[in-house]
């Protein structure tokens, strides 16, 4: 039953999240050893190290630290950043908004484009356009963002001067200026995502085209375009939804590189600088939030997938 499925899926996500929090905690609180020493460096006095550890609470037993941290996390308090002396939630929140703008632009470009490309490739299977989309898409997918980004900057920012080479729009810029600044990094992300989503779409469409029910539909005499629209796409796009959502994880990873390359104040850049500055509370909170978002989007994707898929939605009610 749908209700039970949702509950079960939600429970799984919670378990995964709890495990994730343990992993993050181990990685950022236990592995670095003496956090205070790590932050202040070797020339700080033991007193100031102790003081910092006391202030950060890192002198307490791990279990106490963890429960305290996770308890705070549940209530939206991830502690304060060491470098910025600000609540982690605030910093992460602001960075996420920036990243969301970039990600949204990338998605707006890539989702329709890649799905269209995937469908086209599937319908023209084996022809030139199919090879172009699959091989080209694959190539675009595997080229690291910083490579495509560099080439894009070189062409559009340096040589042609059409678009800015950095992602941060000047303060108070209007929507379009902001979008203009975000365009190159968004294209970077788009290039990587395009091939992947297009491939999945293509595979889904081909599978649906070869499915028995499509044969039934064609042999029923349904016109080709109806078959494609109603029989094929409906079933083929289901897996695509899951893929698009699962790309959240990639996206955030990709954002690190893209945001560093385009000097954009997003979550990727924030985590990067937190890692560089050994800002453990920020790092832990940021990674936890990223993981939670990833799990959340997977959950949403699964729910959307199952809601759209009557086989799961109505399971057990027949």
């Amino acid at each position, binding site marked *: 039953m749908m209700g039970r499925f949702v509950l079960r899926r939600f429970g799984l996500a919670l378990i*995964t999240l709890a495990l994730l929090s343990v992993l993050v905690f181990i990685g950022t609180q236990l592995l670095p050893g003496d956090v205070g020493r790590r932050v202040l460096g070797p020339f700080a006095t033991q007193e100031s190290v102790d003081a910092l550890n006391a202030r950060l609470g890192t002198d307490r037993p791990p279990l106490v630290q963890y429960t305290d941290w996770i308890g705070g996390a549940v209530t939206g308090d991830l502690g304060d950043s060491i470098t910025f002396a600000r609540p982690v939630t605030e910093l992460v929140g602001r960075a996420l908004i920036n990243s969301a703008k970039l990600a949204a632009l990338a998605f707006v470009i890539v989702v329709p484009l890649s799905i269209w490309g995937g469908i086209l490739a599937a319908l023209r299977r084996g022809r030139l356009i199919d090879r172009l989309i699959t091989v080209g898409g694959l190539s675009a997918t*595997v*080229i690291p963002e910083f*490579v495509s980004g*560099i080439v894009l900057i070189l062409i559009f920012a340096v040589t042609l001067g059409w678009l800015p080479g950095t992602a941060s729009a000047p303060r108070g810029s209007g929507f379009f200026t902001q979008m203009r600044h975000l365009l190159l990094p968004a294209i970077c992300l788009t290039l990587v995502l395009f091939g992947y989503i297009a491939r999945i779409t293509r595979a889904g469409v081909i599978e649906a085209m070869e499915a028995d029910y499509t044969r039934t539909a064609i042999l029923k005499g349904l016109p080709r375009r109806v078959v494609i629209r109603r029989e094929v796409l409906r079933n083929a796009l289901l897996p695509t939804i899951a893929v698009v959502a699962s790309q959240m994880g*990639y996206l955030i990873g990709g954002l*690190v590189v893209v945001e560093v390359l385009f000097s954009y104040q997003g979550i990727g850049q924030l985590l990067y600088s937190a890692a560089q500055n050994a800002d453990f509370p920020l790092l832990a909170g940021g990674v936890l939030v*990223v*993981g939670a978002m990833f799990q959340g989007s997977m959950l949403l994707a699964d729910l959307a997938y199952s809601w759209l898929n009557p086989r799961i939605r109505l399971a057990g009610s027949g």
Partner: protein
Amino acid sequence: MAQPSHSAGGFRLTIPQATRSQRWQVLRRSATFWVGATIVVIWVVFAIFGDFVTPFDPLGTPADVLNRLEAPSGEHPLGTDELGRDVLSRVLAGARQVLTVALAATVLGTIFGTALGLVVGYAGGIVDEILSRILDAFLSIPLVITGMLALTALGPNTLGVIVVIGLVFTPIIAKTVRAAVLSERQLDYVTAAQLRRDNGLYVLFVEILPNVANVIIVEFTVRLGYAIFTVLALSFLGFGIEPSIPDWGLMIAQHRGYLTGGIWWPVLFPALAIASLVVAVNLVADSISQAFE
């Protein structure tokens, strides 16, 4: 296989797998495979014999710095970098670093991942459930970030990069292998082994492993592509490679600041080298996975 097959009892027979020679035939006919393989071989040759073919010493001499950032010319077809070293020589020599590290990391990840995937897939039940959850948790942190964190903790060096990427790949490969093992486990030959109370290790490594070998080979080639991707991304972010060693990601990171000044050659050429290698590796991987499907 093209013909819809209807078995007598109404049970679809498992379609026999393509034989080795058939797979090779499919590969041989694939243009993308040949293009990819050729480029990969070229880079491998440079990786092995780079020292003998580069026109200049990729490491340069101190006085080179006075000829820094010279545009491409007859003497330096791809120009010089910020320390005046020959970009062509460094690009050619750069193949060694990325290929060695990526290959070692992939091998490491494949070995661990395969072992883990086999055990988890075969043990099933609660072990599978627990490990799957941990893997899921692990996988919800993006690769680059995991790598970044671990390298900060481990201390950046080539070995660290290999270990980190290898470990990051382990759960991913394990997941794939596990899925293959799970479907393999459904097959009756595993039950038959149970019926003679066969040794678990024998079943795992002698019975099941050969049957998931294709999956592992495909996964290996695909992962190799990602390893190259990740090695370069990490070196671009400044993790783990000695700066004088010719490395494509590092070359781009070191010189991208000059782009705005119109100095494009120390950035573009390594970028093209990266593009050609990753695309080539993935064309090969793609052809292999199609041939093995």
